[in-house]
């Protein structure tokens, strides 16, 4: 059994502040690159186990819709998984906006979802890691259509004991585009994140 990493109030405050900056960065990038103007909610941060993660996703994501779920791993001194979730209806709106066609085909929709995920993950994670003075590598994203809100499969989580959940919601009303973002990191990486935040705190109070 892995030792649990305890985060103090200071650690969570710093992480929350860094994520606020990251979210602001993502909103600006989407406006610039995709000509979509909107807002992103203040990120929520929770430390949980697998059961808690599943419960959190069930409470956050509606069960009655089908969802495009795009997952992208990032690795390095801080590693984890970026998950972007939108309903199939919103995915069509997104394909429509990016490809400027009435009825985007499946390939257009998948590509549009991956493109938005790219921008969100690159801006949010890069801003976070820039603040922590590290660099990470992004891996090829993959998209699945999942009916309901069971977004995490048991086999994917077998080795996780402790997970940090960072979640936010984006809303671009003019384009009818909104979605949920989860950034998950686990076990050894949580210790790594805590160490990086300690370094940041030392910088701030030096």
């Amino acid at each position: 059994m892995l030792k649990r990493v305890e985060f103090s109030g200071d650690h969570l405050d710093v992480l929350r502040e860094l994520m606020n900056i990251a979210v602001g960065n993502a909103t600006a990038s989407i406006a610039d690159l995709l000509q979509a103007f909107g807002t992103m909610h203040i990120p929520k941060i929770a430390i949980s186990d697998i059961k808690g993660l599943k419960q959190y996703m069930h409470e956050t994501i509606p069960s009655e819709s089908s969802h495009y779920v795009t997952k992208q791993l990032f690795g390095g001194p801080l590693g984890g998984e970026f998950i972007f979730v939108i309903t199939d209806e919103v995915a069509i709106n997104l394909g429509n906006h990016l490809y400027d066609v009435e009825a985007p085909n499946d390939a257009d929709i998948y590509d549009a979802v991956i493109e938005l995920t790219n921008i969100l993950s690159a801006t949010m994670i890069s801003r976070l890691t820039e603040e922590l003075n590290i660099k990470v590598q992004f891996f090829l994203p993959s998209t699945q259509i999942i009916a309901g809100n069971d977004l995490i499969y048991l086999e994917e989580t077998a080795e996780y004991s402790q997970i940090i959940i960072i979640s936010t919601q984006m809303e671009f009303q003019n384009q009818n585009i909104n979605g949920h973002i989860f950034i998950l990191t686990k076990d050894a990486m949580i210790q790594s994140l805590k160490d990086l935040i300690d370094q940041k705190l030392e910088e701030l109070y030096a």
Partner: protein
Amino acid sequence: MKKPVDYPNILLDALEHGIMIVDEEFNVLYWNQWLEINTGHAYSNMVGKSLLTFYPEIDYRTLQRKIRTTLRLNSPTFYDASLTNRFIPIPRNKISSSLLYHAAASNDFSLYY
């Protein structure tokens, strides 16, 4: 147009991936050996010319957006890897095996396949 990458490039040609390097106007700066063999277009035929001449069917508006995203965010961008969404066609005499296609733009606007 930027200066083409010298040919042959041992590293780019040793990879089991198709690699092209294009500038922001889609001029080809490098076309690796994998692409030479698999598309039938030689390096000497491609370099210095626009990708548009050979592949007019590519969605260049999307490609330009992806290149801009990559350069602005300093991070790779990806195309969907499904078989219905090929960046450029690679002729295959498929009988029973399959080939995974994907394309990504990275910081030097290279695309790999």
